[in-house]
Every structure is written in C-alpha cells, then in structure tokens.
C-alpha cells in the first residue's frame, strides 16, 4: 500500500482541508475502496450499526467525506476504530459496499501515516499482533498484559489488579492455563512468511520491485 497523498497545503487553523486526490487514492489503494464510489448515501449502514451512536460520523458520512477529499478528518475519525466488524451494514447495503473492509483498511492507513488514534483500539490490535506474529496464536495472558501495560506502568498495574479475581476464577475453571504461551506448530514458518511480506511491502513503498 503506497502512502496516501499529503494535504496540498497547510491551511490556516480552523479551516477545513480538502485534498481532491484523496478520494482517487482511496479508490485505488484501500481494500474495497473502489466501491466507495457506489455509495448512494441512503444511511442503511449507519442506521444498522449496533454502535452507531458511538461513532462521530458513521460509515455513510465518512464515505461522503472521502469523496469530498477530507483526508485529515477521515483518518482522525473514531468511526474507523469503533467498527466491531459485525457485518450488519455489509449484509444490508443496497449497493454492496464492503463497509467493514474499507473501515479496517483505512485504520491501517491512519496508523501508517502517523495519525494519533482517538481511542485504544490500536493498542489492543498491536498486543494481539505481537502474540500472533511471535507464537502463531493468541495467548490470553500475553495479549491482556501487553494491552494493559501499553497504557503505562501505573495504569497497567491498576487494570491487572482490577481483573485479577477474574483471572483466578478462569484458572480455577480451567479456562486459562499456567506455563509457556500457546504456540502454533509452524510458528517459525509463520514468522518467515511475515518477514517476507514486510520485505515486499517495504520494497513497494520504496517504489522498487519486491526482492
């Protein structure tokens, strides 16, 4: 995925910035992004969203903002982070726009472009990813600990203590094991695959051919 175009010029504070190349860039580089052009602004997606009231814009408005070239506002929106991937909108969309794929892909763009996320969803995603990339599986203790302490040492300890009784009950019920993290059989192979993928992505970003 190549970098999203930078805003044409730094406009004075408080003024909306419109980057007219942004829509085209989304059509070409975001997964399912070409379908953003299909949206007819009916509101079925935002109305079907179980957490629609917790979104600043909702998918429908976000798609209009993409078409209007409001890059900053799109990539700093909490809509791309609050999506729970329940697929209600995808199933009901009369234009077959893959809403969830687009939101997820935009979140990836936002992280790569260095936009500060509005909530802690990316922290959890990173914790999840570290566990999966290293061991090929998610380990409930590892993911939880990484996520808690990504908020800082003090907050990490506070959250860990708060949830300790649950953890103990889970161990007692055999729902959480003690010992080394879960590990997939081919964890080493997976790491090699991921390293190769990163190489390809780096090469693409540099404009060269993958090695």
């Amino acid at each position, binding site marked *: 995925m190549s970098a999203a175009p930078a805003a044409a010029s730094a406009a004075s504070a408080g003024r909306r910035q419109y980057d007219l190349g942004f829509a085209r860039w989304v059509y070409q580089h975001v997964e399912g992004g070409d379908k953003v052009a299909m949206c007819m602004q009916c509101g079925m997606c935002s109305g079907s969203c179980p957490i*629609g009231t917790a979104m600043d814009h909702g998918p429908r408005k976000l798609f209009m903002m993409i078409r209007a070239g409001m890059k900053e506002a799109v990539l700093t929106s909490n809509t791309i982070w609050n999506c729970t991937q329940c697929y209600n909108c995808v199933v009901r969309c009369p234009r077959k726009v893959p809403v969830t794929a687009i939101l997820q892909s935009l979140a990836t763009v936002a992280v790569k472009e260095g936009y500060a996320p509005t909530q802690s969803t990316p922290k959890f995603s990173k914790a999840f990813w570290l566990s999966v990339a290293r061991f090929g599986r998610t380990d409930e203790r590892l993911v939880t600990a990484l996520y808690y302490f990504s908020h800082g040492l003090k907050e990490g300890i506070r959250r860990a203590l708060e949830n300790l009784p649950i953890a103990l009950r889970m161990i007692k019920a055999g729902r959480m094991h003690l010992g080394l993290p879960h590990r997939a059989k081919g964890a080493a192979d997976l790491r090699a695959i991921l390293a190769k993928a990163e190489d390809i992505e780096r090469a693409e970003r540099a404009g060269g051919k993958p090695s």
Partner: protein
Amino acid sequence: MAGEAAESQTVLVVGGGIAGITAAVEVIETGYDVVLVEKSPTLGGRVAQLNRYFPKLCHPTCGLEINYQRLRSNPRIRVLTMATVAAVSGSRGRFGVTIETRPRHVNANCTACGDCAKAATTRVPNAYNYGLDTVPAAHLPHAMAYPMRYVLAPEVIGTPEADAIRAACKYGAIDLEEKPRRFDLAVGAIVWAAGWKPYDAAKLQSYGHGRVPNVINNVEMERLAAFTGPTGGKILRPSDGKPAKRVALIQCAGSRDHNHLPYCSRICCLGSLKHAAYVREQYADGQVDIYYIDIRAHDKLEAFYRRVAADPQVRFVKSKPASITADDAGNPVLHGEDTVSREIYDRPYDLVVLATGMEPSLAGALPAKLAVDDYGFLVPELDPGSGMFAAGVAQGPLDVSMSVQSATAAALKAIQAIRGAGGHAAAGRA
C-alpha cells in the same frame, strides 16, 4: 414469410389488466379479432385493486368502466378468464397456442344476485384485498368484475356445502361438474401483457413484514384506503383497528437494492405521495413521514409532489430505515439514520407502509421462448419479425398511463404483424 398472408388474423392478448384490455380494445376497434386470456376470474388486474390513480386521485372505475363498455359492445372479442397459456408453437401468422382453463363452476346464467354467497358457510382469503379479509366460498371477485359473474372456491367442491350453494341458485348457474380444460387456438400475433406482482415484503427481513404488527406494503395500503377494502375505506391499524394517524412510508423497500430488486420501480414514489394524501384526507391531525433516498416524481408528476410536500403534516426524511421492531404497545418502531441531521432515530408509528416494487409476473415461468432483460421483464419487441410483442409492466415498470400507451403501441405492431405478414411491416424491420 414475405408476401405470404397470415393464416390467422386473430391476435392473442395474454393478461387482462389495463394493458391487456387496452391492447385488445385497440385491436378489435381496428377490425381484427382478439382472444383475451386472463388467469384470474375477472379482468381489471392490479388497476382494479387501486383505490385511486395518481396524480389526479380519480377512481380506477374511471378508465376500466369505459374499456369494459368497449369490450362488451364488440363481437370481435372472446374473453377467457381463469385461463393461462400453457404452450406456444409456430410462428408469426400461424401460431398454435395451448390454453388451459380452471373451472369457475358458475356459468353464464349467473345474474350476480348473490344468493349463492348467502348459502356458503366456508370463508376463504379475499385475493382482491391481498388476503386482508375473507369472502364466502361463493363470491363475486370484486365490484368491478368482468364478466360480472360469481366464482366458486375449489375448497368447497365435493362437499355438501357445494350442493347447498347449487340449490340456492334460482338460475341454474352453478355447475359443480365443470372440469379443467385444455385446448388449442390458432392465432397470428401475440401480445404479452401479463403484468406484475408486488415484491415479497417478507424477503426484507429486517422490516418484519408479517412478523411485526402494523407493517404493511403499498398494495395493501391501497386496499386499506379503498371503500371496497377490508375496513370500508378507513385507514385503521390491522392489529387493533385503531385509527392510523402517525404513519411512516418507506420508499425503495427492496427496490434499487442489489440484495433484492436492483431497479427502480418508478411508481412507488408517486404511490406513497398518494398514500400521504389518503391519510391527510382522513385525519386532520394525521402526521405522515416519508423515508426516502430521493423522490422520483418525473415531469408533470412533480406538481403532485409539490402539492403533498406543501402540507406541514407531511415530513420528508432522507433516510433508508435500517430495521423495524415492535414496542410493547404494538407500535412498529423505525430505526435508522437521518442522513441530513445524522440523528440515529428510534421512532414509533401507528402504521408503517413499505413501498415495495414491481416484479414481472412471468419471471421464472415463461410459457414460451421469450426474450427477457436482466431483471426478467420481456423485451418490448420480443424478436423482430416474431409476431410477439410485450405491453405494460410485463416489459418494465410503468405507471397506468404509460402502460396504456405501451399497450396501444403493441396493438399497432400486432396488427402490422398479421396484416403484414410481408408487407411494409416486415420490410420496416429489416
């Protein structure tokens, strides 16, 4: 077949709705014979089931009545009701058509006196009112029936009730022995005017039609507002018979939707504007909300849109509602996003009307090899030189006036095909 005369100069018209009736009348008044085949017990089709036409809000008796008059007084037409086309063979000028008829069990002696209905004890769903109420097993299809003749429901045939019904008839019009028939006709040209059916609202799963009380579709709303409907023309909630004063009308319910009908049915916007007018006529304190993506009131029909929109008690909400649930009081509650204000709403109503679209009646059940478009509608001139033509909604979504125009055009083409057979008609198509 250039230069050859047609073996048959009869035109077969399939479908007895407004398009089929119009095509038939135009052909017979030009001096050719017509066989008009209708699958239900009466002519009139969907138009007879309307309460009013848009945009002038006149009654469908007007239009149907004058055409019935033209049929009745002309010896060139033969009307076959309860009849369908089973097969078609041959070609332009010399078609062989196989017709199948279902028994009506009431012959031409019937005077429509109604004594048979009084003798009937079984009640059956009233197809005229889309099953919103019931009728006696012996009944007149509706007040504008043509022929004006009763019909017996197959449910009672072979029961003592059927004998009682026969005994009640003073004119010997009840024929319990009538059997289904199958016979062949020779015709020179065919006009397919088989019309449409409402899209099945139950397929719009999140809208709860048939599951959530007081969610109906637009054709049911016509019956609810009609004097001959289940409520005598009062717009009442089906669940408890209370006046439906707060009404939501949902546009594009299953239309312009790749999960359902991908096309616009063209009539539903005007239909719903008309429904808003029905509610406001009956209730001074009525409140109608129209949920829409965009309002498609074409050409002169925009004046009707402006008229309805000028009413402060009719509100337009730019939103495709996401779902409908029921609250404890039996009210349907709409959930969705107002795309102008971005409000996520949950609004209760007395009644919700789904503006469902039109599906071709023949979809998936073509009795002959006919060319259809991506949506199952017939291609207007089915195959150049084939002698078969489509008219009315069988060829695509149309309103009544446009159906009549397309039927008149099909009548002319059918006449060219049988006269022609070789003359300028065929040459013109080359």
